[in-house]
C-alpha cells in the first residue's frame, strides 16, 4: 500500500475530507452509478439460492440453498444447460483458433505497407464494421445468406454457383452452419479494429533490430520469427490473457440476432439460455444460477490467466 497518502493514516482525516469536499463530490456520481447499476444487481444474484417469487421480491423469497444449482446441472434443464455450456466453450475455442491470429497477421501486414496514405485508407476501411451495430451487421448477414422461394441472398447465390451448397440449403436455418457463420461474422466485424493494438506493438519495435538482421543476411521469415514476434510478445501475452478470461462469454447480442429455434443445437450459449429460461420462461432463480455459474468461472479464468502470465513473463493485468 505504498501509494496511500498521509491523510489516510491521520486520525483527523475527517477534517481533511471536509476541507476537500469538492473532490469527493466529483467522485460521488460514479460511485452512485456503479452502486445502483452494477453492485446492487450483484447482490441480486442471491436469488440463485432462493425460490424467487416476483411478488415477494429478492429479499423475501424463500431460501432454498443449492437446490437451484443442483437442478440446473442435473434436473429438467440440465440437457439444455450443458448444451449451452458446450456451445459457449466450442464457439470460444474456434474464436481463439481463428479469430485471435487474424488481427495479428493483419497488423503485421499493415506494417509492411510503407505508403502511409494508402495504409491509412486500408486501415480505416478495416475498422469500419466495428462501428456498425449488431442489428445492421446481422441484418446484412441474414439477407445475404437468405435462401427462400422468392429471393436468394447474394452470398447464398455465390456459394451455390461454386457448388459449395446445394439449392435447398438454408444456411440460416441449418445448425451445421451456425458456428462458421458466427465466427466469420465476428472476424469480419472485429479483426480490423482488433489489429490496432498489435499494429502499435509492431510499430514500436526498433528499426535497428531489423537492420541488424538484414546485415546478418536474414530473410523475411527469420525477420518475423526473431524480431517481429518477440517484439510483440508482451502485447500478445496480455491479449491472450484477456481472451482466455473471456472464454465463457460470447457476444450474446449477436447470437440472439442470428439464431433461431432450428439452430439452438449449435447456437444456444449460456447467456441466451439464461435469456430464454430465466427471463422469457420466468424461471428467474434458475437463470440467476446459470448467471452466477458463468460469472464465477469467467472471473476465475481471468484471475488464473493473469497469474500464469505473471509467472511466465513480466506482463500482467494487475
Amino acid at each position, binding site marked *: 500500500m505504498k501509494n496511500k497518502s498521509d491523510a489516510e493514516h491521520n486520525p483527523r482525516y475527517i477534517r481533511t*475530507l471536509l476541507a476537500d469536499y469538492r473532490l469527493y463530490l466529483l467522485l460521488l456520481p460514479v460511485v452512485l452509478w456503479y452502486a445502483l447499476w452494477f453492485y446492487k444487481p450483484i447482490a441480486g444474484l442471491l436469488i440463485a439460492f432462493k425460490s424467487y417469487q416476483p411478488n415477494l421480491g429478492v429479499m423475501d423469497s424463500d431460501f432454498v440453498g443449492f437446490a437451484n444449482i443442483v437442478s440446473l446441472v442435473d434436473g429438467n434443464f440440465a440437457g439444455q444447460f450443458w448444451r449451452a455450456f458446450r456451445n459457449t466453450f466450442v464457439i470460444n475455442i474456434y474464436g481463439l483458433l481463428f479469430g485471435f491470429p487474424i488481427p495479428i497477421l493483419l497488423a503485421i501486414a499493415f506494417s509492411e505497407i510503407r505508403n502511409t496514405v494508402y495504409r491509412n485508407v486500408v486501415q480505416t476501411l478495416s475498422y469500419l464494421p466495428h462501428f456498425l451495430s449488431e442489428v445492421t451487421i446481422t441484418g446484412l448477414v441474414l439477407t445475404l445468406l437468405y435462401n427462400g422461394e422468392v429471393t436468394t441472398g447474394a452470398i447464398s447465390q455465390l456459394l451455390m454457383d461454386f457448388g459449395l451448397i446445394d439449392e435447398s440449403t438454408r444456411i440460416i436455418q441449418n445448425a451445421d452452419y451456425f458456428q462458421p457463420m458466427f465466427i466469420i461474422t465476428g472476424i469480419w466485424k472485429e479483426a480490423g479494429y482488433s489489429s490496432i493494438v498489435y499494429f502499435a506493438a509492431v510499430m514500436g519495435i526498433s528499426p535497428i533490430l531489423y537492420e541488424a538482421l538484414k546485415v546478418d543476411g536474414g530473410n523475411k521469415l527469420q525477420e518475423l520469427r526473431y524480431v517481429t514476434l518477440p517484439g510483440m510478445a508482451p502485447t500478445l501475452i496480455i491479449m491472450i490473457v484477456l481472451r482466455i478470461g473471456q472464454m465463457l462469454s460470447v457476444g450474446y447480442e449477436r447470437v440472439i440476432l442470428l439464431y433461431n429455434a432450428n439452430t439452438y443445437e449449435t447456437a444456444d450459449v449460456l447467456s441466451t439460455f439464461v435469456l430464454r429460461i430465466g427471463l422469457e420462461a420466468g424461471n428467474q432463480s434458475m437463470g440467476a444460477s446459470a448467471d452466477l455459474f458463468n460469472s464465477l468461472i469467467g472471473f476465475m479464468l481471468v484471475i488464473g490467466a493473469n497469474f500464469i502470465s505473471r509467472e511466465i513473463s513480466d506482463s500482467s493485468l494487475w
Partner: protein
Amino acid sequence: MIRLSRSEFIFKFITILLVTIFSLLAFYPVIYSFSASISGKIAYESGQVVLFPKDISFQVYELIYQDKSLWISFINTLFYTIFGTAWSIFISATGAYALAKRRLLFRRWFNFLVVFTMWFNAGMVPLYLNYVTMNVDNRWGIIVAFGVQGFNIILLRSFFEAIPKEIEEAARIDGANEFDLLTKIFLPMSKAAIATVTLFYATSRWNSYFWSRMLLKDPNELPLQVYMRILIENYESMFENMPIDLPYSSDSYIFAVLVVSIIPVLIIYPYLQRYFARGVNLGGVKE
C-alpha cells in the same frame, strides 16, 4: 528507393494484396446495401446486383421518407445518443478526475471497484430484475441506467494523471478549486481523450439494441435499432403484404433502412477515426 530482394518483394506483394482484399471486404457490404436498395426488382432478384446498382431508382427512399415510425425511431436514437453520451461523459470525467488524484482517500479501493466491473458482471437475470424494480422502462431510464464503461473511465484517468502537477499547482495558487480545475484545465487539456471516449460512448448508444428492446414499453420510444430489427424479423411476411407490382424488391426496403442507419456513422467516422487508434492503445488497461 531501397532495392528489395526477390523473396521480400513476393512477401510484400502478397501481404499488401491480402490486406487490400480484407479492407475492401470490410467495406463491401456497405456499398452492396446501397446498391441493392436502389436497384430494380428484376435485376436484384435475378442476382445481377453484385457491386454496382442496376436499373437505378430511388423510389424505395420515397417510401422510407413516408415511413413515420422509422423517423420517430431515428429521432429517438438521436435523443438517446446525444443525452446518453453527455450523461456517460459526465459520470466518467468527474469520476476519472477524482480517481486520478493521489490524495483521494481509499483511492486504490475505489479504483478497484471500477476495474472490477470490467471482469465481472451480475448477469442478465439480476440486471433485468434490478432495471424492473428501478422502473427503467422509459426514455430517461435508458439514458441514466446505461452506458458507463470502466474501460473509458480508466482511459480518461490515465490521461488526467499525465497532466503535469505544476499546471495544477499554478492554477490553485490563482484560486482555482476542483471544479475549475476539471472544467478549465483537465478537460481542455485532454481533448483527444475526450474525443475518443465520446466516440466510444456515442457509437455504443447509437448501436444499442438488446436492453432497449427488453425494457422500453412505449412503442414511440423505441430506438432505430429495435425498429430495424423488428422489420428484419418480419422479413418473410413482408412478401405477402407488399403489392406485387412494385418496381423494387422488398429486400430493397430492408437495405434502404440499413443504409439510413449506417449513414450517420459514416458521416462522423472520418472526423473521429484519427483519435480512437491512439485511445485504444492508451487504454492498455493497467491498474
